[in-house]
């Protein structure tokens, strides 16, 4: 069953390019929407088949060694959700039917790659699917073939290649000590050879690679350019899920399945997390470009997630996983809002805006909800994940980092208040009087994501206990 998460998106993309392309073009958007909705449903609704053993027919053909735990389920749901939102944004922004169709194909390949990352139990398989996601990301960033987009894609290719080299060197060293690339085999070998220099070197290479992929400071060089230059729909997808899957998820998976949380690893994670959370937020405060501010905000929130992981406890991991979900939702929402504003005004300079709330009430309302959730204001969803991360840091004995996390939240609130005041509040500029609310394909995903933010904020407390407890099994291997 798990294999279908990779096979279905890939084969869909393949089949869509077979003869009858005209018919396929018309069907592609609907087919993808159904696929992504199915992925979301199957990953969270028990009994829909995700936990069942491979059906015999599939098992006879495909002998894949894949696995799923609560963290993978969170990721699979987020991938489906962000892909669905990207699909909606794509249908408005790309006018040409060929472009729309091509974008959908790349989206399917990226989803297949990310699903492969989430399901892999072998470090080399994980690397291959990371590369699939990276290739799809290059194409998405450069999709419009404009100068800025090509420059952003080139920067991403360069830094991603460095990350790939570091990662493959790390894999080679892990293989050297364990004679296998399976998570459990490497884990056993590492237990037998504790504190080996080779293992530390392998882990250092891997961490550096994943920090680049996650866009954490000081490895963030590609993030603002890539997010800003990419087409609106691609920005939603990149910021919403790609960096989280390729960077943060892989990091958590390597830590819980292979190396475990040593004191030195926790120290590195906490420092990088705190550094990214604070410097990312300070950098966001100084931006005048809507998307660039959101890019730095993403770096800051990635730092938050890493702080949760760095606590090294089940509570910290639960907080990190929850913040991955929340960030996927509110950052996708904010990028959809920025796309709506950019489409209406033809500019992303927030100093030239003002008073748009009266002209674009839905965009304005959903943007306020997304911003407040990102800043961790109760009772919105972002509050719970930030609260859990801060409690996890405090209870693990890292009180200083807990205080830094709170400071990061205050800074987040500060730059989002500046953004809201500059864009949606204040006096309406006379030249924007003709501006109208964005079209249905941007309003619908914005409303959907806003409902998730409010709904998750209200209902999360009811399931938090179960959610946190389930991370004991993740940490147990």
């Amino acid at each position, binding site marked *: 069953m798990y294999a279908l998460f990779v096979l279905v998106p890939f084969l869909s993309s393949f089949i869509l390019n077979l003869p009858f392309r005209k018919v396929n073009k018309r069907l592609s958007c609907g087919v993808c929407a159904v696929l992504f909705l199915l992925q979301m449903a199957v990953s969270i609704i028990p009994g829909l088949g995700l936990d069942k053993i491979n059906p015999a027919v599939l098992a006879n053909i495909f002998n894949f060694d894949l696995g799923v735990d609560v963290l993978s389920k969170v990721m699979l749901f987020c991938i489906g959700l962000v892909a669905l939102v990207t699909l909606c944004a794509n249908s408005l922004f790309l006018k040409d039917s060929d472009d729309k169709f091509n974008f959908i194909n790349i989206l399917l390949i990226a989803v297949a790659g990310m699903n492969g990352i989430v399901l892999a139990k072998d470090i080399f398989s994980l690397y291959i699917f990371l590369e699939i996601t990276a290739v799809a990301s290059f194409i998405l960033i450069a999709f419009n073939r404009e100068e800025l987009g090509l420059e952003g894609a080139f920067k991403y290719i360069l830094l991603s290649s460095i990350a790939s080299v570091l990662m493959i060197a790390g894999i080679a060293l892990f293989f050297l000590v364990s004679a296998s690339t399976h998570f459990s085999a490497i884990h056993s070998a590492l237990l037998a050879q504790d504190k080996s*220099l080779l293992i530390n070197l392998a882990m250092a290479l891997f961490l550096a690679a994943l920090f680049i992929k996650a866009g954490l400071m000081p490895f963030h060089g590609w993030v603002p350019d890539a997010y800003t230059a990419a087409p609106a729909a691609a920005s939603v997808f990149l910021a919403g899920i790609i960096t989280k899957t390729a960077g943060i998820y892989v990091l958590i998976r390597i830590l819980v399945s292979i190396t475990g949380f040593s004191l030195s690893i926790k120290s590195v994670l906490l420092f990088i997390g705190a550094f990214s959370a604070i410097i990312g937020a300070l950098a966001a405060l100084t931006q005048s470009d809507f998307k660039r501010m959101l890019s730095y905000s993403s770096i800051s929130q990635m730092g938050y997630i890493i702080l949760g992981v760095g606590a090294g406890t089940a509570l910290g991991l639960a907080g990190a996983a929850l913040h991955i979900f929340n960030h996927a939702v509110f950052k996708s929402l904010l990028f959809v809002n920025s796309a709506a504003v950019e489409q209406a005004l033809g500019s992303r300079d927030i100093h030239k805006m003002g008073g748009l709330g009266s002209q674009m009430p839905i965009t304005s309302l959903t943007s306020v909800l997304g911003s407040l959730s990102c800043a961790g204001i109760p009772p919105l969803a972002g509050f719970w994940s930030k609260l859990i991360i801060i409690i996890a840091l405090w209870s693990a004995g890292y009180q200083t980092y807990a205080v830094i996390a709170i400071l990061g939240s205050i800074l987040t609130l500060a730059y989002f208040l500046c953004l809201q005041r500059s864009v949606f509040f204040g006096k309406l500029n006379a030249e924007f009087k003709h501006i109208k609310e964005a079209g249905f394909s941007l309003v619908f995903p914005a409303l959907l994501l806003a409902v998730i933010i409010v709904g998750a904020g209200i209902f999360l407390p009811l399931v938090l206990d179960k959610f946190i407890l389930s991370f004991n099994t993740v940490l147990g291997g």
Partner: protein
Amino acid sequence: MFLDLIILILLVLTALWTVMTRSLLRASLGLALASAILTLIMFNMGASLAAVLELSVCAGLIPVLFISVISLTQPLTFKEALEHMHSRMARFWVLPLIVIILGVILVLISVKFKAPLPAAQTPDSARFVLWHLRQFDLLGQIIILFGGVFGVVVLFKERKKSA
């Protein structure tokens, strides 16, 4: 051991030349040469199948692809090439230094690599490895190829609006 060391030094020198040379054509040839030397190391270590693949794909096919693309581009004039080389030297003069320092560090710490390394498990054949043990990776490779080809078509095909 002495032979290994010479081959390794040759590999590093060729790789450095590949990165620092002023002409794209020479860089492609340098890449082919580096791959060929890497093939020697692989043969020497008993990984003959990997060596054959390295030789045919990395030392053969890929440089041919590069050279065929380079032949479609406009070459630099001698003066431009010289300027380009000078700016490249100014930027990358530190690269050989880094390689030497890293080499010394690796030699020094290699003394401490005393971990009881297990022997590599060599399954029966490459066919068995590919079709039975690494099926998921094989699927991944197919998706990468498909994605890459699709990307080239999407990014380089002339679009209707720009026609």
